[in-house]
């Protein structure tokens, strides 16, 4: 069935006024349109613009959340400006990322990168996670700089760098490791293991073993780090096994 924008006037009017506890049946037409416009660029574009209009009108939280969920499926660069604005609203930041993280357009990455430099605390933790999910190497240095921040931020920075699994991430984590303590130290070690495992997947056994050996050496004989030392040892065994298998 061809996309009929006019048929969605009433559903979108319902969405504009929607709040939790209201009858959600009118929204089903929008749900159906999301699926029905797969492969229909014009229909999708219209649908996206209408969802953006909803966001820009500043509706209730429930309506914003709904629009963000739909844009997480069909959003493009068109939706980025409206979503980016929501990154700075504590109530909406997460759902804005819910959409932006999935929009392939470079504009989405740029919006998240800008927010990284402007937000703090919990919202910044989320931004780091989203940038890591997108593999944005350009933000890696900024994230690495946060390894020396407060514990919440530093742990999140370590997790994000672990998600990158890149040589640059591994280097940044290694540089921060000696000064880290407690939960931050554990998070950095875990992230370094992620990097080492990626190297092993790429058959770069020597580089992987170097990471494991460094961690094992740094944790040797420290009761509080026994778990990490054992994990590093396990990693070295995996490198040896991989070599033996060749």
């Amino acid at each position, binding site marked *: 069935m061809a996309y009929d924008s006019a048929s969605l006037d009433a559903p979108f009017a319902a969405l504009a006024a929607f709040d939790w*506890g*209201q009858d959600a049946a009118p929204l089903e037409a929008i749900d159906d349109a999301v699926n029905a416009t*797969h492969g229909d660029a014009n229909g999708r574009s219209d649908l996206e613009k209408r969802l953006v209009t909803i966001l820009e009108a500043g509706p209730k939280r429930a309506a914003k959340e709904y629009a963000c969920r739909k844009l997480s499926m069909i959003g493009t660069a068109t939706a980025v400006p409206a979503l980016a604005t929501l990154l700075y609203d504590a109530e909406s930041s997460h759902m804005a990322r819910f959409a932006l993280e*999935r929009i392939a357009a470079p504009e989405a990455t740029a919006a998240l990168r800008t927010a990284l430099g402007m937000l703090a605390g919990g919202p910044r933790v989320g931004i780091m*996670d989203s940038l890591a999910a997108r593999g944005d190497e350009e933000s890696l240095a900024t994230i690495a700089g946060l390894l020396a921040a407060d514990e919440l931020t530093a742990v999140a920075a370590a*997790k994000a760098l672990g998600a990158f699994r890149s040589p640059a991430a591994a280097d940044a984590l290694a540089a921060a490791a000696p000064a880290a303590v407690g939960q931050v130290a554990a998070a950095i070690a875990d992230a370094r293991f992620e990097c080492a495992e990626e190297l092993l997947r790429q058959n770069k056994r020597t580089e992987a073993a170097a990471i494991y050996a460094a961690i094992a050496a740094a944790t040797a004989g420290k*009761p509080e780090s026994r*778990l990490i030392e*054992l*994990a590093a040892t396990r990693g070295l065994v995996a490198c040896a096994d991989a070599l033996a298998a060749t």
Partner: protein
Amino acid sequence: MHRLSTTRRGFLRTSATAAGAAAAAPYVITSKALGDATTPPASDRIVMGGIGIGNMGSGDQGAFLSRPDVQYVAVCDVRKSWREKGKNKADEKYGNKDCAAYVDFRELLGRSDIDAVHIATPDHWHAPMTIAACQAGKDVYLQKPETLTLREGPLMVAAARRYGRVVSGGSQRVLDDYRGIVDPCWSGELGTLTSLDIAVGGPSMPCYLAAEPTPPDIDWDLWLGPAPWQPYNKGRCAGNYGTGGGSWRSYIDYSGGSLTDWGAHHFGGAIFAADLRELQPKGVAYHPATADGKTAAYVTLTYPNGVELHHNRPAALQTAPVSIEHKGGAIKIVADGQPRAGKPVPRYRTPDGSGKTNIYGDFIECVKQRARPFRDIELAINTMTAPHLLGIAYRLQRSLEWDRATQRFVGDEEANRLVDRTRREPWIL
């Protein structure tokens, strides 16, 4: 050498040295600590805690509490009533007031004396808590469904392997309830299996329940955790087993619906019977509902070895003679009828090798032997991949192709947007 360093506890403990343990030994040894004919000494008991002590969690707690080789020391739940009930249950068992009760699972995981935890929270917390538990050096018994998204599974397996943890999924039914189809399939008497039909409910739905005042006895923000913020409503977080609304199992932010809830059992039993646990489906064929409305949509998964798994395929389309079916018809299996060599059915692990225990006993024995359990997390997530793929196909209403190596859909960017979901800070994986 000090006794502790030669026992399982000395091997498991990751932070205490033998000398440190000797220094910490009590001056007065109680009879309970020494053990007796039926109870191992304290040093040989697995010290456990539980996270999520609601309906299922309470049952799991009871199972572990009943074991003489477990010392149950802590509960954690964001609801005060569940927390207190769990604590009281443990205290009553041991005749003391020693069981700790936490709101925040991180405090429980931070205890160096706890060896293992059981987790029975809503599904959206399963992956973050399991990964955190592994990172804290704990073994994990995790209720099914083990995952909420496709991306979570590999991360959980990686954490378990990285830290050498025993992580068991929790479908207690797979080896027990489905024995009637498992044994004939594994014996080879039916021949080579070609298709499975599984009848179980569908995916979860959005939640639009109205806001209600948040009661004082629940930490609502912590209950939500990584899920999107929505207002408290008792129906949003109710732990009943319904999936038609009015329970967290109904709603997409916390559960995959009946597809993954009961599905974890039915898919678990069927996939085990068909010996597919090491595999993940490749083809995902969506069959739309007929225009006359007489036939509902259904989905067929195809495994790399050619076996087809049909979800809710209409009976009229099930034309091949059924070789065997699970009682009630929830699982129907078609095989070629050409007897082939059989394989021994994997068992639960027991000290005597008999396999005569349950999934809880299997977990505890694997903790002691440092072995992979019957429903090892890797096998569990392979199984759970099936209902997750089905859920995405139903949502998008089209066929898909899954690439196990990359853990991505082939050529479908929209489907790949559903492989995971953005978690609410600070609960990133």
